[in-house]
């Protein structure tokens, strides 16, 4: 199965990788461990999962604006996701992907992407293939 989605560029990039997808919002400050790249928010659908080198798919960010710096911290330690796909990007994620230089697209129906899908991002275009 292959689908092609078109969204809006928050940070331009051309990357390909495996999706890690959730329907729950993510708080980077307090919700993601900057030392390991794992989601540590109690009770989160993705608790314990590593976001490193994944195409991270979630509806929107939440929590403190310090979360932007966590994205930078992950990037500098080689623990960042390859790219971020949001339904609706908000300032914490937008500022984070710009200072950390992580490709990001929003206005994408994130429900159409599942964990394990192969995702290719070219600017605003998101191609999803599932085997």
């Amino acid at each position, binding site marked *: 199965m292959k689908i092609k989605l078109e969204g*809006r560029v*928050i*940070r331009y990039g051309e990357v390909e990788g495996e999706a890690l997808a959730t329907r729950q919002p993510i708080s980077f400050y307090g919700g993601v461990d*900057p030392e390991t790249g794992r989601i540590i928010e109690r009770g989160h659908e993705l608790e314990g999962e590593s976001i490193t080198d994944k195409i991270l798919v979630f509806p929107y960010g939440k929590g403190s*604006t*310090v979360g*932007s*710096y*966590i994205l*930078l*911290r992950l990037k*500098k330690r080689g623990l960042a996701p390859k790219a971020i796909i949001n339904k609706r*990007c*908000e*300032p*914490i994620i*937008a*500022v984070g*992907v*710009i*200072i950390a230089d992580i490709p990001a697209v*929003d206005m994408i129906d994130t429900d159409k992407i599942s964990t394990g899908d192969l995702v290719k991002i070219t600017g605003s275009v998101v191609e999803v293939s599932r085997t």
Partner: protein
Amino acid sequence: MYLTREEERMLKGEYGYAAQKAMEILVALGKIYEADRMIEIKSAQISGVSYKNIGEEGLEFLLELAEDGRVRVPTTLNPCGMDLENWRKMEVPEDFADKQLKVIEAYRKLGIKLTLTCTPYLAGNLPRFGDHLAWSESSAVIYANSVIGARTNREGGPSALAAAIAGRTPLHGLHLSENRAPTIEILAPELREEYEFAALGFLVGKRFGDSVPLFRGLGAPSRDHLKALGAGLASGGGVALFHVEGVTPEIVRDPGLAADERVEIELRELREVIEEFSDDFEEPDLVFIGCPHASIEEITAFYEALRGRRVKRRTWIFASRAVRDQAESLGLKRKLEELGAEIICDTCPIVAPIRSMGIRSVATNSAKAAYFSRNLNKLKVKLESIEELAEEAVK
């Protein structure tokens, strides 16, 4: 989004790395909020100063920006993690202090005034009615919007810094008149004590977190009452603007402002909020006022409540240096010190490494401080009036 030629040039990097990064951030935010263009700002207030909050990576980002970045508008700074003059006396760990000083140095290099206060409006950064600003620090944002009638969104640290460097911010949200009208009316009981205003703000913020409340029936609150109300609203929820009938400037100019929905808050509900912030402990490790940073009137009220009695525990008044200097010239600082109470500058109990200073329980008159002390710093808390705090301090 429309960009002027100068803005395009910043984005292309013709004004250097920092201006380019700043413009990239602002353009992305403008896109998200569907702003048509940028608006020039008169001043900025930057949060994200305590090393405890921004960490090593925040510091690295600031150092990168400080290489060639300079702010274009008068810019002031939020509190950091310690009193820069008296941090040893405060028992702040040495390695923390070292990192904190590096953060401060980066901000200084960017051309930012080291006011280190959450009340810039009491320390030389006093906007005028209608001014466009890019402020972070939610209690300062709501004060600027509501009590002064200036216009700012609730910025985060990085977006306020980007706006300061670029001298502009995307035109959206509370910069536009149509978003400043009240969305709900709150019929409140007449209150006298500052901690009651704080509790009212916290309660309304919690219930109507993304509203623009219009308060009726509050009587004639003072500037400090409004400061406490705003800090409560902004920490209980995401409120960034409120109006008070007959008091705040926008409704004074346009008395017809009104909302369709109206809710009555009873005194009993405020008691419940105060009760909720009443943990079980006998003697607090720290009694403090000054969240947001205290005004000279608040310091005076606390001094009077002590009625010449010596304090028996750590008793701190958090204030800006500007207000401390006022207290000094009035002889108030010396009189407080004689009673064992101290005025602490540059920091606050939320952003200081309070647990490593051996503090486990606090009593305060601020709902915001009570909330964050409990949820962020894991302390036991009591929310009390200035009179009660004085009693806690001397008992």
